[in-house]
């Protein structure tokens, strides 16, 4: 680790924290229907939207109606994206003449993007036409992010309101998320990215004449380089802001056209955590106690920093096997040093390790370095960040409602210890709430570990493994951990574009997204009916450092109990053998 590396991480966190309050406060005003600066300009468009889709914005929904609206919206999104990929060969804006996507791959990708996972079994520049990237990927980047935010807001209303039965109107929450939050932010970030060098063009791929001609494997002279381009910046902005993570190109944000400079890297990293972090403040505002929001943010931040620095230390130490070959891996001002396999020089070790940590803390899943080539402990960090259930920031909306499920469990366990009825924000936590919270927390490890076990005992599951030994097991575990948590990053050595991984992965992504949305909304529906109980001396305060520490312990213990055996078989044993 170097002083400059620590400085880069510190400045990133400071800038992020400075943006939390302004954006979080703005989002709270948007969702509560208060006046905002953009509201005056975009209000007519919002009202026109409701007229066109025939929705009365004043009409509130119960949790079941809300859930059905989410599911119907998602199913139609999935069908459209599937059809678009299957027909892209005959559709316009396909200058490279790319063919239709195979059925299993198209299904996996449709579910992947609608579920906010953005797992990519395909290579962007060799598979998807410009039209598919725009109408398919970009649209679902907005839609799935907005749906996650809407569900969070419905959940918060469940906590705020009392003695009623409705949690808001899904179409209104969705429209406001896109129109007032995602679209303006994406437009600003996209234009900044173009200015800093990210491509945005509808021209066909460019051809360059090589400075030094070369010879290919069959002995033919090669004098040209084909440069894949496309309308990338518009997609990258929303892929980061919406914690989607699906890249325009195969190597995602490691690709110089997707992430050309350290400054674009900073901007993209900032975009990943911006909304999930600010939503904590939005939550505090909406429950009329901003300390509650800051407490959740503090818990997330502490875990992020500890694990991020651990990843940086592991990657910075380099690969002992290369040291044995006499390779210089010491970091200086002239050499990034460390484990540079799979990393881009302009980012170096600190930006690669930090990105890996935040992209898995948030369920973003974009990468600026190849996680498969990380050192065992460096690769353990992103794996563990996902295995916490994507609650350390997590997906936009989904991360915070996941964390609130942990809060409910934390309050419950604390209540058991002191023998009091657990409460959170004036709502009694009873057996129904605990059942739903337990479902929210336990569905994920069952999916992830079950499918990993299936993959490592079946032929098609094992055939896709690339690296030998325990690292190969880590590839499979990482794959299902990523899909089972709607993350989308990968140990990309795993050849996942096969019917086995496409279909079982699609199953994992569906479960992770929609089987969790239903209990979340059910929880909201139950909480919203409860009366508010007054705060007394016996109420457990949920904004103190003690509670923050307690919440972290609960997240760590649940995560560790579920996954330690599997981690021991993968990265830990690999580390010991290195």
């Amino acid at each position: 680790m170097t002083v400059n590396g620590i400085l880069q991480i510190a400045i990133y966190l400071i800038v992020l924290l400075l943006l939390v309050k302004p954006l979080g406060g703005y989002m709270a005003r948007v969702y509560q229907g208060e006046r905002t600066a953009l509201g005056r300009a975009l209000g007519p468009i919002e009202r026109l939207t409701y007229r066109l889709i025939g929705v009365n914005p004043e009409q509130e929904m119960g949790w079941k109606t809300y859930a059905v609206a989410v599911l119907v919206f998602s199913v139609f999104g999935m069908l459209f994206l599937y059809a678009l990929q299957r027909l892209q060969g005959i559709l316009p804006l396909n200058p490279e003449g790319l063919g239709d996507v195979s059925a299993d791959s198209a299904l996996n990708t449709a579910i992947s993007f609608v579920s906010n996972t953005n797992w990519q079994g395909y290579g962007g520049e060799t598979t998807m036409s410009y039209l598919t990237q725009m109408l398919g990927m970009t649209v679902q980047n907005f839609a799935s992010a907005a749906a996650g935010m809407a569900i969070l807001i419905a959940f918060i209303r469940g906590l705020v309101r009392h003695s009623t039965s409705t949690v808001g109107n899904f179409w209104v929450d969705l429209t406001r998320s896109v129109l007032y939050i995602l679209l303006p932010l994406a437009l600003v970030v996209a234009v900044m990215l173009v200015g800093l060098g990210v491509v945005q063009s509808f021209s066909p791929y460019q051809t360059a004449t090589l400075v030094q001609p070369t010879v290919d494997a069959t002995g033919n002279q090669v004098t040209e380089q084909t440069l894949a381009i496309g309308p990338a910046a518009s997609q990258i902005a929303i892929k980061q802001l919406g914690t989607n993570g699906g890249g325009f190109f195969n190597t995602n944000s490691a690709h110089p056209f997707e992430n050309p400079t350290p400054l674009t890297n900073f901007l993209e990293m900032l975009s990943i955590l911006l909304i999930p972090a600010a939503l904590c403040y939005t939550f505090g505002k909406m429950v009329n106690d901003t300390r509650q929001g800051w407490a959740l943010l503090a818990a997330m931040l502490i875990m992020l920093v500890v694990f991020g620095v651990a990843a940086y230390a592991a990657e910075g130490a380099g690969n002992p096997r290369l040291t044995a070959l006499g390779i210089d891996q010491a970091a200086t001002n002239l050499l990034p040093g460390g484990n540079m396999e799979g990393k881009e020089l302009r980012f170096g070790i600190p930006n690669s390790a930090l990105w890996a940590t935040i992209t898995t803390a948030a369920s973003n899943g974009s990468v600026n370095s190849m996680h498969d080539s990380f050192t065992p402990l460096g690769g353990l960090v992103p794996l563990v960040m996902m295995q916490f259930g994507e609650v350390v920031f997590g997906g936009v909306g989904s991360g915070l409602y996941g964390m609130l499920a942990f809060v409910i469990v934390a309050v419950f366990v604390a209540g058991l210890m002191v023998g009091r009825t657990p409460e959170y924000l004036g709502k009694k936590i009873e057996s129904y709430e605990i059942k739903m919270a337990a479902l929210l927390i336990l569905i994920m490890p069952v999916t992830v570990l079950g499918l990993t076990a299936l993959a490592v005992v079946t032929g098609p599951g094992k055939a896709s493994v690339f690296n030998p030994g325990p690292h190969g097991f880590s590839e499979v575990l990482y794959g299902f951990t990523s899909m089972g948590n709607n993350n989308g990053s990968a140990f990309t050595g795993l050849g996942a574009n096969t019917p086995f991984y496409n279909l079982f992965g699609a199953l994992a992504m569906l479960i992770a997204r929609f089987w969790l949305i239903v209990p979340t909304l059910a929880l909201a529906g139950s909480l919203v009916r409860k009366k508010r109980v007054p705060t007394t001396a016996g109420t457990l305060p949920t904004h103190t450092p003690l509670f923050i520490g307690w919440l972290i312990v609960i997240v760590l213990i649940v995560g560790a109990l579920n996954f330690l055996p599997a981690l021991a078989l993968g990265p830990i044993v690999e580390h010991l053998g290195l």
Partner: protein
Amino acid sequence: MLALLILVTGLVYPLAVTAIGRVAFPHQAGGSLIRVDGQVVGSELIGQAFDDPRYFWGRPSATTPLPYNAAASAGSNLGPSNDALTLAVQTRVDALHAANASVGVDNSAPVPVDLVTASGSGLDPHISPAAAEWQVARVARARNLSEGQVRSLVAQNTQDRQLGFLGEPRVNVLELNMALDALQ
């Protein structure tokens, strides 16, 4: 609702970004292409493969079927414990020493790590200043230039950390090699 979203976020939004990009940043939006006499010879952002002793070499690239295939970016995905990684690194070290020997240069300094490890994209345009310095003697000898001349070209094509603290100091290999060719 979905149709509206497709229209606004799938068409209007990317077209608006494209239009702004074309007007305000045409060079960047089009891929930061380098043209010589009107002909595209590469991009400032995308590396090219070099294995001639007369040129500076860039990061190893794991793209297929050729290194630096900018139509199909890829990393090696080799794990740290994979023997294939150790073997690949050893082969690259040997190739670097062989290139030195072919022009009668002997460089016994340890090889900087970025010169023997594949980049994430397979298209990394940069090497570290240390990796450039390691190659100065070879390039100078192969081109009958003084090491000072080559070193000053390296310095001209070296970028510092952005804003003084972001990222890593780096040398653009394609631009450096074009500057070398322009010298002669």
